[in-house]
């Protein structure tokens, strides 16, 4: 049985979501009363079960999210271990370098500097323990700020951050960064 339009919309949002999405936010996006979200997510969840999808829709602390079906963990683990390249890509290394030299820094600031969405790369670096969230920026939005970890220093064979080779810092300061961030209009071009 095909999904209802509302359940489809919820599924699409959960597909792009990186964090669990609260029912309140889903209600807002769909312009529906929040009481209707639970039944819709149940519909979605049930549809995944009955059709034997490879993922499930679950409610966890903070909201709803899509995750792989536990049955398929062996494939997912194999993918995680085989599918990742054994070296950091040039893009990932450059992002790591920006975090190392400009820390603490937000994802949006890195994105503004690199001109591309860096969510995936930041996640990877965080996942691998090279960088970590260390706080939140003051002001509106309260963006999460990232810094390098002790594991990062260890892997590079350094004791302290100030042992990093000096670089000519051509990057704009915080104010210019904020401005740059603003100029990058949040238009999706693909």
């Amino acid at each position, binding site marked *: 049985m095909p999904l209802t339009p509302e359940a489809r919309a919820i599924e699409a949002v959960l597909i792009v979501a990186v964090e669990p999405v609260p029912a309140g936010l889903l209600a807002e996006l769909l312009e529906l009363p929040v009481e209707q979200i639970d039944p819709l997510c149940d519909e979605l969840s049930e549809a995944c079960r009955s059709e034997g999808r490879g993922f499930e829709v679950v409610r966890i602390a903070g909201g709803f999210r899509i995750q792989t079906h536990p049955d398929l963990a062996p494939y*997912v683990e194999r993918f995680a271990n085989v599918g990742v390249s054994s*070296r950091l890509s040039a893009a990932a290394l450059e992002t790591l370098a920006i975090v190392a030299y400009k820390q603490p820094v937000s994802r949006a600031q890195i994105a503004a500097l690199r001109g591309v969405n860096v969510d995936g790369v930041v996640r990877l670096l965080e996942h691998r323990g090279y960088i970590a969230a260390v706080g939140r920026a003051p002001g509106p939005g309260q963006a999460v700020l990232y810094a390098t970890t002790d594991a990062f220093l260890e892997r590079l*064979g350094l004791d302290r951050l100030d042992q990093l080779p000096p670089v000519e810092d051509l990057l704009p300061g915080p104010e210019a960064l904020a401005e740059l961030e603003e100029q990058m209009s949040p238009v999706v071009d693909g």
Partner: protein
Amino acid sequence: MVATVSTPAFEGPIDLLLQLVNSHQVDLYDVPLAAVVDAFVVEVAGWDSVDLQVLSEFLIVASTLIELKSRRLLPGPDDIDTDEELVGWEERDLLLARLLECQAYAAAADGFALLLEQAARSVPRTAGLDLDFVVNAPDLLEGVTPDDLADAFGRATAERPVPVVDLYHVTVDTVTVADTVAALARRLPRLGASTFRELTRHLTSRMEIIVSFLALLELCKQGRVSLDQGHTFGDLEVAWVADDRQPVPVGPGLYDEYEG
């Protein structure tokens, strides 16, 4: 190295021609050649060594434009010698070929814009792996030295994104040649004689100055002003030729407009 010529609406000779060709209202001959040449000269001055290929390509484009434009601008015989017309066919063919190729890529660019727009309607899943999965992948920083990191930082910062302001659809308030002819026809009889620099002193945009120049040429064609330039790059002396027989025709549509 090829010269960049940037005015709000035009970028370089080829772009310029393309725009002229694609928008049917613009006259091919109304090209701000001085700006094109100025920018090129500045560019050449910065060269370490002369790139003959670029130089000659520019000369072909520029000389073709200059030839075409000068015939149009200068008062002269109404018809031209056919032999003379044949001169420059080869250059024009080359230019034509390049224009065609550029048009094909412009069409491809339109297609790209459409594809980008369509593709942007679908967003890929990038949430990645749940962190509770066990990953035994090798250390991704294996073999990376602090110097590599510093180099990466250098690369990352050397390529800062250039904020792009798309002026493609910006329309500017245009000052028309017709209006300027009318204004000069009122102003010049009082002044009697003046210089181009004097007449354009109050103007702020290059566009207005170009339009004033074109308006003066129109008046010159009609025999209402005399123009004299003492020496190359000297100030242009403008003198009103008193003629009470009939007023200077004014009104929209009487003069070719500059669409720069």
